[in-house]
């Protein structure tokens, strides 16, 4: 049976510290370009268990655009199904920009996914935040860590 979360109860993404570190490291390694990847886990409530690697195919605008390689999405989805988990979200970086969705992010967004955005700068990674499409716009999704972990 499909569970439905009451609309007045905000979703929270469980994203353990280790995965947040991995996102920050992968994003920073691509700086000053945008990087992207997949988040695999359980969907409801959303619990991230691991990350999937994906290339950014926006080769002519790597500084300010990302196009996640659909072949990588397919591979991640297959892996997830084999483990009885799902693709539950996408992460990408905003080089020298805030960790909040842009108009371009909104245009291509899907309901039901967590969109984790991390700021990258010449001095290292910055804020990391998660967002979820809610009607016509994005709403910030709280991030919870694991037990030994402080919220990000």
């Amino acid at each position, binding site marked *: *049976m*499909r569970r439905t979360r009451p609309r007045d109860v905000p979703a929270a993404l469980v994203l353990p510290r280790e995965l947040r570190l991995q996102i920050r490291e992968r994003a920073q390694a691509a700086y000053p370009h*945008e990087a*992207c990847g997949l988040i695999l886990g359980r*969907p409801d409530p959303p619990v991230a268990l691991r990350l999937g690697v994906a290339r950014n195919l*926006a080769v002519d*605008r790597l500084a*300010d*655009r*990302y*196009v*996640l390689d*659909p*072949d990588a*999405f*397919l591979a991640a*989805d297959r892996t997830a*199904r084999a483990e009885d988990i*799902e*693709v*539950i979200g*996408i992460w*990408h970086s*905003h*080089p*020298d*920009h805030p960790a909040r*969705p*842009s*108009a*371009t*992010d909104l*245009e*291509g*967004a*899907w*309901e*039901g*996914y967590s969109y984790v955005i991390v700021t990258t700068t010449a001095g290292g990674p910055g804020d990391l935040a998660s967002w979820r499409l809610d009607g016509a716009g994005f709403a910030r999704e709280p991030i919870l860590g694991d037990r030994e972990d402080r919220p990000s």
Partner: protein
Amino acid sequence: MSQITVRIPTPLRSHTGGAGEIAAVGATVGEVLEAVAARHEGLRRYLLDPSGEVRRFVNVYLGERNIQALDGLATPVGDAAVIHIVPAVAGGVS
């Protein structure tokens, strides 16, 4: 007509009663997607545009291959084939 499995991504499962896979029949990818959209009408606007072409924000795979690299919706499907609906994911800083 071949019996095909169509894999549905998480965001679209609210239109399939929660099902992650749907069985459908058709001789081509287009026929299979049309059969799926006819049975789950809420899926249609995510899969096909008014002219019947694949929407910009989805990719359709037959097995390992994106149908854009094959014959698109006219690509024939064989028995026990798997069609995968893959969200197109894109964005940027501005």
